[in-house]
């Protein structure tokens, strides 16, 4: 299925999303907490970038700033080279805690953004139906979030983000609250979606394995205040990027990359 992203005019050499020298401080200068310190990061059109780092390193803050939900203390967020402005449907966000509206059914949740942005009714319906199919939610249209398992809830949240046909998809530890089995299945699902539809994704995680499996590029952050420690481009091996995660994890390149990134993260966790 062709997707809007493929038809988006992308300027060569111009990243889709760019975080330029982002610094985020909470509270007063000097006394407050410096969460993110001068982070620069860009995501090319159709690229899947994963950010890993120790807990509390400010990677979620970076995401919040990237989504426009918080203003950076210093620095700029750019989309196609222009200031990104307030949050909106160009950037969809998937939150760790799902953030589904408890008072709305699956259908209403997925349609929410379409209604807010004034998409015509008939198109709302067709987009909803295809998204329900893609995420395997056809039978849960009328269910309330509280009636679904965590994994199903996160599927709804992903569907709600994708149905907006966003230019950029921001995912903030989306599988952090799920059990291991559900997580594996959803990782494979997201991997498939990206492979088929070439979404531009910025993906925050604390799981090295997840980052190596999903990412085209992995950005390692230092512990607080969060800085960019290193960026690692992963070889796009056909076998590894199409197979299931079990299979991928046995690939020698996968093992090398995981080891390298894990040692970087461990350095940060163990650092005094």
């Amino acid at each position: 299925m062709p997707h809007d992203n493929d038809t988006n005019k992308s300027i060569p050499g111009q990243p889709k999303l760019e975080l330029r020298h982002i610094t985020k401080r909470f509270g007063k200068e000097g006394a407050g907490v410096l969460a993110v310190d001068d982070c620069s990061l860009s995501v090319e059109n159709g690229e899947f970038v994963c950010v890993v780092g120790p807990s509390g390193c400010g990677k979620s803050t970076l995401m919040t700033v990237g989504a426009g939900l918080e203003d950076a203390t210093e620095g700029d967020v750019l989309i196609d080279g222009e200031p990104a402005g307030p949050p909106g449907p160009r950037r969809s966000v998937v939150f760790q805690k799902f953030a589904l509206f408890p008072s709305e059914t699956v259908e209403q949740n997925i349609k929410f953004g379409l209604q807010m942005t004034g998409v015509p009714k008939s198109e709302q319906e067709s987009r909803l139906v295809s998204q329900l199919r893609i995420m395997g939610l056809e039978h849960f249209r009328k269910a309330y979030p509280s009636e679904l398992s965590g994994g199903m809830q996160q599927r709804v949240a992903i569907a709600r983000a994708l149905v907006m046909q966003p230019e950029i998809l921001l995912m903030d530890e989306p599988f952090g609250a799920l059990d291991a089995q559900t997580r594996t299945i959803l990782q494979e699902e997201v991997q498939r979606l990206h492979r088929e539809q070439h979404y531009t994704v910025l993906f925050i995680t604390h799981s090295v394995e997840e980052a190596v499996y999903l990412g085209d590029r992995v950005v390692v952050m230092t512990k607080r205040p969060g800085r960019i420690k290193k960026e690692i481009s992963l070889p796009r091996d056909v076998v590894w990027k199409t197979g299931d995660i079990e299979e991928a994890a046995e690939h020698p390149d996968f093992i090398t990359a995981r080891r390298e990134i894990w040692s970087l993260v461990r350095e940060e966790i163990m650092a005094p």
Partner: protein
Amino acid sequence: MDRLPGSKSFLVGIAAIGCWVIVWWWLTRSGGPVPTLYFPSPEDVWTKFVRMWTRPYIGSTLLEHILSSLYIVLFGWAVAAVVGIPLGIAMAWWKKLKWIVFPIFQIIRPVPPLAWIPLTILWLGIGDIARMSVVFIAALVPWLMNSMLAVYSVDKILIDAGKTLGANDRQILTRIVCRTALPTLVAAARMALGNAWSTLVAAEILAATAGLGYVAVNASQLLDTDVLLVAMFMIAILGIALTALISLTQRYLAPWSVTSVQRG
């Protein structure tokens, strides 16, 4: 905690009530240890209850007294809702409004609503309006405070999610905040009605010409203990019924919250 399963605990409850009625009956039997002037027997209470439906007691039948009480409590409660809910939500939404209005409420809040009764009697007499105002004051504070808390209790992440999906401030307020806050508002409704009901009883004892509290205080002065007990039982039963009714509306107003409760 080992809890008894539903139907069994219901039977046990019935059995316990039965035990207590028997104890009551035994204590108040003719020639028993408790004189009926202080505590009438179950038969006396039942007879009076039946008779009060047809024969007026101090001016009205039992039904008329009940309707008078219900009319005033529901009216005061509803007006308090109309004022309290929008104001509470607005105070949570616009910080400045809260900073201005909240201190006034903080000053009024600790005064028991019924302490206003003498003032309302002086200002408004002993008519319906006086009692309605007292009920209004009693219900307003829970309405307002809980509407405010209901908005605060909406997870900030839902508002963030709304923003990223392109909702503007007004849409966030109406579609996300107000709807998500509904279950809390139902709880507020219950609390406000509880306060209103108990305050109304006090107001009717002090200044009324009808109503269950009025029946109770007159029965006490006329030493009609059986009538007094009828009034007290009716006050309890109506209080329970009204609260149960509000709990039922939650199923219709906020079905999602009910299912989530059932699934624990």
